[in-house]
């Protein structure tokens, strides 16, 4: 399988990358780890005339922790997140999500930013990004802007990142009481249902993000409302989890029926909440 011919550029700075995108418009595509784009190019679903490789841009490859806030560069790989001691202590959800992606080789190349921008409805990161209520920083020709997680995913394979823009950084508040529980499609490793839960016992509040179940990843609003202000005991968590697919029309395909996905959403939500609450 060969991609259609293209020209290749590896800019040294973000500004250089942005100006290449401005100059070439629709004919240019960004390359990060390549684990979504290259398969699409081999199938000729994507045929960019110019590939702009930002995978090694230094400014996008850091994990920073300061005052309870975490900033993760868009080009940090899943493997780097999975191996981060800092993140394991401060926000185990991120480590659990990264470890659950694909396989070792895929985690070594794939990046959090590339995965988010690709916005596969069965990708793992969206659940965590929603549950952590992340801020996503996007650079464009007019400067930088920040989008909240809730406004980021706009459709299947569609996000708030506009043509000519580059996702730079993901920022979250560290959440030690957090967890990810996933049921995967065995052959591909993609999520039939992945649930990220963040528990704030002091404020008596939870946030739940669910991927793989609906065409667009979502916050389980009914679960969150049911637990608002409640003592987060095991029984109440399990009862609230029963509403994890409320108001959602689940996906159905050869891997799982809509009913089964809704069932997984409920079961995995209960498990993720319980594991997060125990931390």
């Amino acid at each position, binding site marked *: 399988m*060969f*991609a259609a011919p293209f020209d290749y550029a590896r800019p040294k700075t973000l500004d250089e990358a942005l100006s290449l995108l401005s100059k070439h418009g629709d004919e240019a595509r960004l390359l990060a780890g*390549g684990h979504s784009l*290259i398969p699409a190019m081999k199938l000729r679903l994507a045929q960019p005339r110019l590939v702009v490789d930002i995978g090694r841009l230094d400014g996008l490859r850091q994990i920073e922790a300061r005052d309870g806030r975490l900033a993760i560069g868009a080009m940090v790989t899943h493997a780097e997140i999975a191996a981060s001691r800092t993140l394991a202590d401060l926000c185990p959800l991120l480590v659990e999500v990264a470890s659950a992606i*694909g396989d070792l*080789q895929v985690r070594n190349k794939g990046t959090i930013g590339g995965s988010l921008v690709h916005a596969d409805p069965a990708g793992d990161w969206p659940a965590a990004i929603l549950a952590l209520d992340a801020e996503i920083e996007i650079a464009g020709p007019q400067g930088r802007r920040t989008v909240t997680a809730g406004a980021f995913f706009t459709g299947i394979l569609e996000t708030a990142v506009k043509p000519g823009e580059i996702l730079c950084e993901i920022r979250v508040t560290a959440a030690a009481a957090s967890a990810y529980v996933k049921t995967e499609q065995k052959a591909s490793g993609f999520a039939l249902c992945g649930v990220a839960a963040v528990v704030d016992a002091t404020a008596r509040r939870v946030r739940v993000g669910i991927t793989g179940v609906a065409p667009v990843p979502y916050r389980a609003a009914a679960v969150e409302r049911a637990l608002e202000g409640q003592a987060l005991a095991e029984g109440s968590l399990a009862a609230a989890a029963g509403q994890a697919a409320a108001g959602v029309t689940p996906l159905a395909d050869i891997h799982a029926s809509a009913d089964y996905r809704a069932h997984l959403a409920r079961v995995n939500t209960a498990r993720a909440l319980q594991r997060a609450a125990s931390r």
Partner: protein
Amino acid sequence: MASPVQIRVTINGTLHTHEVEPRLLLVHYLREVCGLTGTHVGCETSLCGACTVLVDGKAVKSCTMFAVQADGCALTTIEGLAVNGDLHPVQEGFWERHALQCGYCTPGMVMTAVQLLADRKRPTREEIAHALRGNLCRCTGYTHIIDAVEHAAARR
């Protein structure tokens, strides 16, 4: 028409400089340009892991990487593991524990196991299986492969 790009890649300790078409996949570069045919083309869809090589010490599927992305990197392929004819401990493990039948997946299995053992001195059987998840074998049923990696870990 796309412009060729000059790349400099160190493979098994030797620097290679070539002009390549940007769409050339790393696995085809290794096999057809460099003549290193030990790295196998399996599924070409980043599922089977037969094409696994180490790029700067990390296992990657060379069918899902363009050769231009490896510019400036240090690669290790299956040909680079044995030293003066002495097998690498992982290769020796595959030999001793009969961890292959047809052998097609073996180079990829070995390269992934090399990264695992660089990261973890004595992985458990579960950790070995988890690390090899991206490498498919249709002959052995995996048990002997896990035995082989355990053997290699114990021998170091």
